[in-house]
């Protein structure tokens, strides 16, 4: 009896030794958390020696948790992050570079914008899904205002915007476009309008800010004129987080530019007919541009030895072609692999279509310090819209501040 017990304990100990537990972290978003839980079940069934624990945190506290937990050696092995955070995370030692075998597949199988997951020539993570921007419009409001088609050029956009803007004295009761510098509009200026005007926001090596040049100034004036000249909207029309989206869902805003990540929220909330169309351009045939972005899964420095092997396996599993299809179905985010994006069913879908088409010419801004660089552009816009600053002066100031952030990072 005693011998049997010892043998059983030994066997248990052996099994324990072979069992590796890794931790996956992401912020709390129900459909993502549920899908990852299901993926973990599948993964554990296929890899009996590995156990994966998912931990989630509210979005506002997420980076704070990562910052302190990894430093204390208690954090995640595989961690989800916004691509714009990558350079600061890498610099502060929160991620380890991926092995070369994985890099090759990223270069060949994934959409070009994943290049933004590289720092100093090395990949630090893999995305499951990618996002682009498009114009959401309220079909019922369009109909009521006698507008037949969604705008394809900016002139049509202004005309529609003006028809949709309703004022009562000095107060707006409905606006044509949901101006939101701190929503997606700072990306619209930097990555869409600057490129449509023939410029580039940053140099190819990401060391120089270029949007302070003539094309950038033209693009910036175009954007601030939406409020100043065409009067198709006002900032802070709806208070709160993402007020522009809330205002659209409430039926008080005719058009917004938002990401594919907003589809789910709008679908659940909007009680009217709405549609999606590609971002307008200067004139038919003119240059197109879009802002692409993604969340990716990286490997923290805590994943070492057997844990690192297990983490790499899990990382590949949650970025596989099968996972991406499931992700599209469950979470509603667009796949990051070129082959799946080519599916004609996706590009002709009335809702996903404009985003998929947009992805084909989208670029992910090469941020080095997204939080700071976003603020620079948001402030540049607000100085003009809220403080009546001269657009050229304001943008030149932003370019100088942004350059300082780049210099500080590369120093």
């Amino acid at each position, binding site marked *: 009896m005693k011998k049997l017990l010892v043998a059983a304990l030994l066997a248990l100990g052996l099994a324990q030794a072979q069992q590796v537990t890794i931790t996956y972290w992401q912020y709390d978003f129900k459909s993502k958390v549920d899908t990852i839980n299901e993926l973990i079940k599948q993964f554990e069934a296929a890899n009996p020696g590995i156990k994966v624990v998912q931990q989630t945190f509210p979005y506002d506290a997420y980076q704070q948790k990562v*910052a302190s937990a990894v430093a204390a050696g208690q954090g995640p092995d595989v961690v989800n992050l916004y691509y714009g955070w990558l350079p600061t995370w890498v610099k*502060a030692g929160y991620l380890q570079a991926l092995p070369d075998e994985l890099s090759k597949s990223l270069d060949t199988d994934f959409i070009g914008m994943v290049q933004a997951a590289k720092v100093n020539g090395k990949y630090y993570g893999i995305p499951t899904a990618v996002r682009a921007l498009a114009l959401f419009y309220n079909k019922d409001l369009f109909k009521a205002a006698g507008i037949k088609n969604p705008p394809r050029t900016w002139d049509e956009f202004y005309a529609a915007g003006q028809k949709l803007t309703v004022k009562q004295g000095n*107060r707006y009761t409905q606006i044509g476009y949901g101006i939101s510098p*701190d929503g997606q509009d700072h990306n619209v200026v930097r990555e869409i309008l600057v490129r449509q005007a023939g410029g580039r926001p940053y140099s190819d090596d990401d060391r120089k800010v270029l949007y302070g040049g003539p094309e950038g100034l033209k693009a910036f004036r175009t954007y601030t004129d939406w409020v100043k000249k065409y009067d198709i909207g006002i900032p*802070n029309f709806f208070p709160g987080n993402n007020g522009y989206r809330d205002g659209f869902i409430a039926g008080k805003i005719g058009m917004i530019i938002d990401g594919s990540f907003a589809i789910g929220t709008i679908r659940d909330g909007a009680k009217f007919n709405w549609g999606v169309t590609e971002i307008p351009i200067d004139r038919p045939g003119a240059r197109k541009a879009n802002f692409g972005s993604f969340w990716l899964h990286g490997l923290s420095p805590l994943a070492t030895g057997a844990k690192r092997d297990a983490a790499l396996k899990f990382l590949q599993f949650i970025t596989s072609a099968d996972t991406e299809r499931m992700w599209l179905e469950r979470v509603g985010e667009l796949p990051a692999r070129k082959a799946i994006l080519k599916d004609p069913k996706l590009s002709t879908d009335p809702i996903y279509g404009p985003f998929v088409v947009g992805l084909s010419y989208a670029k992910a801004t090469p941020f080095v310090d997204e*939080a700071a660089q976003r603020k620079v552009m948001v402030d540049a816009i*607000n100085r003009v819209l809220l403080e009546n600053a001269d657009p050229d002066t304001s943008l030149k100031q932003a370019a100088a501040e942004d350059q300082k952030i780049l210099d500080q990072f590369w120093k």
Partner: protein
Amino acid sequence: MKPRFSLATREALWALAFLAIPLVFFLFIRIYPAFQALWLSLFEWNADPAKRHYVGLEHYSRMLTDATLGKALRNTVLYTVIGVPLQLALGLILALLLQSVTRLRDLFRAIYFTPYITPAVAVAWVFSWMLSPNFGIVNEVLGLLGIPAQKFLTSPAQALPTVTAIVVWQNLGFQVVLFLAGLESIPRTYYEAARIDGAGGWATFRHITLPLLNPVMVFSAVIATIGFLQLFTQVVNLNFTDQGGPVGSTLTLALYIYQLAFARFQLGYAAAVTVLLFGLILIITLVQLRILSRRVEY
């Protein structure tokens, strides 16, 4: 057997034992990390402690050319300079009024105290709707009075005073309770004596109430000042997607530290700014204690 220590000594030992627990807590959870921040401010941060390299006073020299820090510092001082006197003055006025109320006294006190126990996040949300230039009730009322709609939180010029007003409104309940306690502790006999001597309302306030409220006043001023110097929650929530905005007009030192550390992972520089905030609070508190707590002569 005779006990080794006398009863008094044993009681003192017990008291010390109980005091030791919070003492250990403060030493290791509060004071030690505070000094660690001082140490950290001399290093470039890395998740791996072995890779944190020493940079000397580099973070401190960076502060000198950091325009955002300058703005945060200026805002923090403004919040304090406007907020503290406002909070003390309004608190005292309300406390004096409440003291003279005899009916439904507790109800009034409860009403004034409610904002203090309401979560700051909820307060921020409700206020951002009430103060909305297009839908807010406040502008609705102003419109009825013939005053044009104000931008409040969405205007770089008005945002800081608006945030200050909201914070004062929220702290007022606590301030009133402090002053009420102070007022109750002033012996009635002084007022009676003054009345017999023919002193009027202003004279009794000036020569009895104010001097005898001095200890409460000093305590309130110090606590309120520290509170405003550390202002964070309301600022974050009143403009959630552009925290500290518009155009940095509501940014505080505490929020800037948070952004540097947890949105930009520059924990070394954030620690240096924390040291600056610590120094600021220390100096201002010492000065306040010196100026305000003069001995009162009756």
